[in-house]
């Protein structure tokens, strides 16, 4: 099963995602509350997949994405953001994100996108 790193500054969001993804058969490699921690954990845990929020304190998801892709050009990062941030999503796609998920979530869609991205 793919190991996934869940990155979001909202604890309830991480909890919700962890539950959802575990039920869908993913292994949770770890969780991070901002981009800085995500980059560190990426190197430490070497997850198969990262689910990355865009708006976060300390280091945002875009910056973290770029750092991770620099470390590992084959990294599979799926961006996750609220609607109205299309520009950031396109920037992330251009910077090497594999896909994106828009909030509010549809559980089925989340699982589908992540499975695709991990394949």
């Amino acid at each position, binding site marked *: 099963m793919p190991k996934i790193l869940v990155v979001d500054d909202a604890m309830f969001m991480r909890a919700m995602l962890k539950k959802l993804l575990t039920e869908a058969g993913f292994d949770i490699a770890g969780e991070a509350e901002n981009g800085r921690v995500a980059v560190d954990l990426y190197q430490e845990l070497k997850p198969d997949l990262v689910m990355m929020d865009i708006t976060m304190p300390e280091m945002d998801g875009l910056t973290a994405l770029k750092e991770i892709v620099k470390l590992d050009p084959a990294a599979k990062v799926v961006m996750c953001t609220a*609607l*109205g941030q*299309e520009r950031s*999503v*396109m920037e992330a*796609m*251009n910077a090497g994100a594999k*896909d*994106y998920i*828009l909030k509010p979530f549809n559980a089925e869609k989340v699982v589908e*996108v992540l499975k*695709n991205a991990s394949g």
Partner: protein
Amino acid sequence: MGGAMRTTLASDQDLDYRVFVKRIAEKTGVNLGCYKRKQMERRLRSLARQYGADSLREFYARLEADPAALEQFRRRMTINVSELLRNPDKFEELQKEILPLLLSDTRRLRVWSAGCSYGAEAYSVAMLAREMSLGKHRISILGTDIDQEMLARAREGFFSEIDMKNVSPTRRRRFFLAEEGRYRGRPEIRQLLSFRHHDLLRDDFARGFHLILCRNVVIYFTDESKDRLYREFFESLTSGGVLFIGGTERIFGAEAIGFEHLSVFFYRKPASQRVGVMTDA
């Protein structure tokens, strides 16, 4: 409430479209972003529905998983409508007004059919030029397209009864051989023709053409892509060379590029360009 919902859907779809365009460009080299968004998006969503996909993201996933479907899609995005002497009166004008002008100026006529599809336009010019030159000129006609399969067909040179509907019986006899309900160009015209791959939106342009035909190719191009294309064509023409475009097309800002507007479908690069400094010597 309703307004917010609509906005949400609109931006979701916007992203769906833009990411699709980006992925297709990376995957196939075809840049759909060079085409007008509204028509292209409508076309893509309708295609997606035919594949049973309810978003372009899903459509892409299907194309990516199925190379044959992807190839079919790529081919579909490059339009292939063609027939010989399409707009017969314009080809008559080409033959009676334009070709004599060009042939009187050179013994070596170079023609380019840009976006030639399976070659109907190139074969049309080959016939007309043969008739006008009376063997006095070396004529070469280059057909280019981005679709290899269309180029292969063009090299073979078979045309259907429908392709031939504007070709008179006399011309059919002289220039074509009838084979099992199809028509094949005779060596007399085929030897004037060559076909090769070229992408109008990406590749460099060759120079030194007396006549360029680019008809019904640019209809989905953005104004920006068209402008760039016509500027490139201008550079590719010899002085006095002529550009022949399609029935519904117009070159906006033709004068700014340097073209003279000869008539509705024909634009000319001036015979002697007075550019730069004239010396006294």
